[in-house]
């Protein structure tokens, strides 16, 4: 609150939004404790085994598996790039942290997508839901990422779980938005054609709209994963572990070397995940058909 407030503004009522928020969070912590405990256990149960798997197997195996995936999805050039990039990460001291970051990103973005895509379908089909969802999504996207960490600490304490959950909330909006956009962009005439032959709504959705919206939805998937990766690093502030920890530590100690190593590991992981998910979308027949149609047009 400013002390030099102009007398002209003195009539404005004080709005204790911060106090209300605190009260709400306090209430939630007190009364929804068992619920949050359950969520924490579930998230823990997902992240821990994946983390153990990725850090447990030799780095070479992980590099080869990802490079193989890259070969299948994009070709040998990308496979080679993946192998070189991840090989570089493996050669640095932070391989384990990188894998734990990967585990968190995979869990957070999978959970985010499991919620975002159905939600996107709902808001695309229902105008009222869309009107409600829009401001909420705006809030989720523009709220500074760090702010999510505060209630996350309240509800879940310090550690991986608040990091993953804050990441989930932060990365969800583009999944919802692009699903909605993709569904709305489906050619009206094609939808009408499906309806004109008497197809019920679920059939129009599953066999016409969703396949045709898939390329846009896959862009959403890609965006969700990218946002999750950026947030997971910030989540290092709440002790989520992984590369976030490395970078936070480097920041507090002003260690350029380890900071750069952690940063480069994030970049390489980001590029690999981005290209992999980007090309995964192209493997669907509907995406191929639409690309061909666009080229022809």
């Amino acid at each position, binding site marked *: 609150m400013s002390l030099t407030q102009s007398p002209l503004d003195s009539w404005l009522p004080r709005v204790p939004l911060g106090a209300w928020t605190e009260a709400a969070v306090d209430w939630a912590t007190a009364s929804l404790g068992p619920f949050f405990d359950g969520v924490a256990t579930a998230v823990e149960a997902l992240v821990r085994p994946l983390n153990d798997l990725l850090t447990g197997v030799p780095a070479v195996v992980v590099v080869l598996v990802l490079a193989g995936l890259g070969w299948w999805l994009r070709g040998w050039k990308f496979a080679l790039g993946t192998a070189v990039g991840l090989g570089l990460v493996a050669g640095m001291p932070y391989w384990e942290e990188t894998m734990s970051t990967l585990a968190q990103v995979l869990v957070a973005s999978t959970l985010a997508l499991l919620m975002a895509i159905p939600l996107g379908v709902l808001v695309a089909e229902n105008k009222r839901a869309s009107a409600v969802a829009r401001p909420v999504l705006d809030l989720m996207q523009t709220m500074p990422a760090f702010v999510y960490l505060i209630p996350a600490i309240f509800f879940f304490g310090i550690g991986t779980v608040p990091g993953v959950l804050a990441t989930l909330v932060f990365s969800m909006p583009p999944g919802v938005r692009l699903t909605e956009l993709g569904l709305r962009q489906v050619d009206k005439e094609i939808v009408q*054609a*499906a309806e*004109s*032959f*008497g197809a019920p709504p679920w059939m129009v959705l599953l066999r016409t709209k969703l*396949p*045709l919206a898939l390329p846009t939805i896959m862009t959403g998937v890609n965006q969700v994963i990218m946002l999750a990766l950026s947030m997971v690093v910030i989540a290092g502030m709440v002790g989520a572990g992984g590369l976030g920890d490395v970078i936070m530590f480097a920041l507090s100690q002003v260690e350029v070397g380890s900071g750069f190593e952690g940063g480069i590991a994030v970049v390489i992981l980001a590029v690999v995940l981005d290209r992999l998910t980007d090309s995964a979308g192209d493997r669907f027949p509907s995406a191929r058909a639409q690309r061909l149609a666009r080229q*022809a047009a």
Partner: protein
Amino acid sequence: MSALIVQSLYKIFGSRADEAVRRLADGKPRAEALAGLPATAAVIDANFEVRPGEIFVVMGLSGSGKSTLIRMLNGLLHPTRGSVRVDGVELTTLKPAALRKLRREKISMVFQHFALMPHRTVLENAGYALEVAGLPKAERRERAMDALRMVGLTEWADNLPHDLSGGMRQRVGLARALAAGTEILLMDEAFSALDPLIRREIQDQLLELQAELGKTIIFITHDLNEAMRLGDRIAVMRDGRIVQIGTAEEILTDPANDYVAQFVADVDRTRILTAASVMEKPQQVLDVNAGPRVAAKALRESQTSVVYVTGPMKKFLGTVTEDEVLRALREGRPHLDGYVSTERVRTVTADTSVADLFGDCAESQHPVAVLDERDRLIGVIPRITLLTALAAAAPDEPAQDQDQDQVELVGTKGEPA
């Protein structure tokens, strides 16, 4: 019974629809009637019946409401007011499930931009209606193949729509509607996206299929020549209202108002008008048993030089000229038998188009004889009559190009105010 009956059908977009309908009911133009209302009227008081087996064309420029109208016929759009009855079933009050059932069983649609599913093969697209109806795969395949055979696309069955040209894609669209096996076909500007030659071809194909299948077709178009070519009857729409319903000839020869008259001014009448519509009553028709004296009297009275002669059952036999009549008189024959000639006159049937009359008229020394299906003489066409009909067809143009029947009205006339 009519296949489809539309009564007092309105579609108002925007709010205060009831007020809009009330204001429009007395026939005022929509711009005037709806001034100040937050509503637009797409279809105003449409009334028509479509007979089983006919091609009913709804023609109008863009914005005339024809696309909205056709979408109310299968419930894709819900009418604001009025009634649509398909095969006796009132469509406007059906529950969604019943409406879907009606669409599956009674009425299918072909779209302007084909609306094929790009991720499905031609065969899967053609069998879409059957898939919706829940038919087993083998039967679906068989019936979709039959439909593709009708449009001549069986060898493309396993391709994606992308591999096909525009004309072929629309034939898939047509096959999809045919495979559904419904009695009624709605065609929304189905051929408008195709270039003229392809359009002509697919129009022919539709007419051939129609001759074989006898579907009830409601065809929307903005192209008058297409309307005239395909339509058994044509409804002309303007600003949301149907301004005239009639056969191509009725609309050409007796336009309901200036708008329709202006609309049809550009059409190539020689293709639409038939011999029956331009022919005149033959001046002198005599039975073959009439004597030469009767013939001579007839010629003198009508001041012509030729008599048309009919035989038993009024069958047309040929002509007798002045000279022949005189010869018969000199030779003292009791009747005209033996003097009748078919060399100086050509005959055509009543439904011959005017465009096809030119040759006959040029080669026929006497006015061309028009015969009905039992070869009875029903009229004659002197050259001057043909020329007059042509002059009426092209008031401002010195020469009528016979091949202009693909010229689109929209391109040449622009939007009416």
